[in-house]
């Protein structure tokens, strides 16, 4: 498959860069009151923000995060299909040369047991980062992930620890069809004992990956294939970013959009479009869906009174349903309109590019939902 084919799914409108990095705001870095950091508890700006940070793709940022953590902790190792040569997209490329094939271990095509071996090795002193090539294939490893990784700490009365990071990539990009395009994060967020992270830009990808690797719990780290070649500024040896903290990407007062992963870019574009009409839109990226930073979202809705939730997964049973439910519980009397979801239809992902384009939620549908919310009282 060609790289361009994989990139197609998430091209921003009018040929824009697919996803803006939160660090495009780095020229105002010393002002910690900027909206970007509002959702970050105890935020302190990194020391090196005085300098311009290098741009990296989302993919390179993930690789840099892996490399820095492998240097930091010799217990960290990578385990998965084809990882020694970089995997199908090149995320782990070069790590085998740097750290050797004993720390970048190619496995047979046996997802369930790749997961199982990683869990066992985590109980016995290692800190594995495994790669399940597509989130669609995590179905093969569910017994190990759900019944073992997520529960061993609990079942052992808190004695066993499972410091495991499961890297997967998800989503629609490149017309790859029903078995290579799903967004299954809501399944995983339903399981106590797992943490679920979905970064939308390079800096978050790197910072959250570092936290995932350092965490003593199983963390499913969901990358979006369509974001792999999007760029943003990322500091070398940058801080980790705490799991469970949403980011406010844009301040607004008329309406809040909560957008996840691939939907962050179209949500920001929608906000800019509406801004031209004098509508002020706040955009929040939860970044982590379990635990979910409902506090930041609810505080925003309290201010704007209107909420749109956008994700690429199908609408029914999606994480949007959880967000809607918890927001109405928290701030029901502040709402001026029903909360709307922008998500994929309840259907398998179609393969043909035309059908796929129709299937994927986009800026236009987000804008439309915003207008509907704003027109109802």
């Amino acid at each position, binding site marked *: 498959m060609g790289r361009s084919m994989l990139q197609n799914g998430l091209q921003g409108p009018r040929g824009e860069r697919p996803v803006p990095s939160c660090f495009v705001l780095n020229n105002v870095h010393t002002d910690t009151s900027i909206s970007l950091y509002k959702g970050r508890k105890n935020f302190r700006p990194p020391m090196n923000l005085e300098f311009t940070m290098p741009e990296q793709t989302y993919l390179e940022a993930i690789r840099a995060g892996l490399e820095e953590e492998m240097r930091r902790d010799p217990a960290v*190792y990578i385990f998965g299909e084809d990882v020694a040569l970089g995997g199908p997209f090149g995320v782990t490329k070069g790590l085998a040369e740097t750290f050797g094939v*004993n720390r970048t271990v190619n*496995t*047979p095509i*046996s997802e*369930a*047991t790749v*997961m*199982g*071996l*990683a*869990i*066992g*090795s*985590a*109980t*016995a*002193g*290692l800190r594995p980062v495994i790669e399940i090539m597509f989130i669609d294939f995590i179905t093969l490893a569910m*017994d*190990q992930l759900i*019944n*073992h990784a997520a*529960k*061993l*700490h*609990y*079942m*052992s*009365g*808190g*004695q*066993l*620890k*499972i*410091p495991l990071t499961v890297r997967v990539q998800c989503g629609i990009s490149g017309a790859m069809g029903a078995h290579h395009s799903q967004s299954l994060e809501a399944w995983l967020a339903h399981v*106590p*004992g797992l*943490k679920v992270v979905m970064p939308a830009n390079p800096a978050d990808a790197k910072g959250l990956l570092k*936290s995932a690797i*350092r*965490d*003593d*719990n199983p963390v499913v780290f969901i990358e979006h294939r369509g974001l792999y070649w999007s760029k943003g500024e990322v500091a070398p040896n940058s*801080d*980790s*970013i*705490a799991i469970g903290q949403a980011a406010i990407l844009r301040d607004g007062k008329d309406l809040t959009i909560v957008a996840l992963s691939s939907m962050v870019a179209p949500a920001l574009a929608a906000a800019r479009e509406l801004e031209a009409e004098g509508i002020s839109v706040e955009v929040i990226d939860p970044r982590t869906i379990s635990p979910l930073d409902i506090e930041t979202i609810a505080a925003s809705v309290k201010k704007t009174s209107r909420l749109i939730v956008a994700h690429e997964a199908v609408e029914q049973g999606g994480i949007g349903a959880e967000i809607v439910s918890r927001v109405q519980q928290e701030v029901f009397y502040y709402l001026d309109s029903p909360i709307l979801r922008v998500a994929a239809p309840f259907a398998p992902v179609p393969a043909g590019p035309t059908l796929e384009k129709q299937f994927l939620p986009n800026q236009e549908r987000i804008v439309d939902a915003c207008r509907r919310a704003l027109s109802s009282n």
Partner: protein
Amino acid sequence: MLDTAKRKAMLRQMVLLRAFEEKLEELYQRKAMFGSTHSYRGQEAIAVGVCSALQSSDLIASYHRGTGHLIAKGADLYTLLCECMGRAEGYSKGRGGKMHMGDMAFGFIGNTGTVGGTVPTATGAALSAKVRGSKEVVISFFGDGAANQGVVHEAMNMAGLWKLPVIYVCENNQYAMTVSLEKSTAVKQYSVRGAAYGFEGKTIDGNDVEAVYEETARAAAKGRSGDGPTFLECMTYRWDGHFGGDPGTAYRTKEEIESWKQKCPIKRLKEKLIAEGHLSESEFQKTSDEVYADLAAIAERAEAAPLPKKEVDLTSIYAPLEVSHG
């Protein structure tokens, strides 16, 4: 050759394992134990033979019929009984029950309610041992039913590929719940599968505790010296049904059950020691009475132990966050 003291200790251990299963059955019948039992009666020689050949730093992973493995590896009887009875002082604070536990203090990395589920995790612990350059070996206990799960094949392939220090101990009691071996499995003996993954597979008499010990000791030495895994298929028979509630007679004849009771692993070692002049019937009886009496006292204490608080216990779902962000 095992010395007499060691053999006598193993005999006592087997009696303890049997007493434990009988105690669980009694507790279950009078509803003092919840969930279900999965009796290990008849299979005691495997847990005892295997675990007696291990070092304390070695690890085991177990499955639903696993209380015997835990005791043989060094589980605390009071804590284990508390767990079986849902007491707050159990291994999992009363939240796991007898199938869902783990305790590194005696090298136990977990058992499972999903058949075959710990075969990959045991193999992963062996991977860790190899990567860390330790001399630990890992025992993966599983039954003949689990042997037909896909993950068992996947794990054995990886273990063979990387020469991991793991011993696959397949307890072949000849019935996967109600389905017999010949009705579920294309080969006569599972041990041939070792060859499919590039390592030794051997079928042994699982009711001969000395044979189990010797084979485990040999396989463990092999694992420690970097020569990879071993598949030990231990032929045995479960005396009781699959779980508490299954008399085990709808799919097995009374004659078959009786014939295997004649091959009782305890009886076998006892008679051998008596024939050799190392043990008398009365000495055995005294040991057995002591084991049963000690266990009864511990069970009484466990039954009187406090129950968990009535609130839903949300602790230890996640390990505490010790991440420094920098």
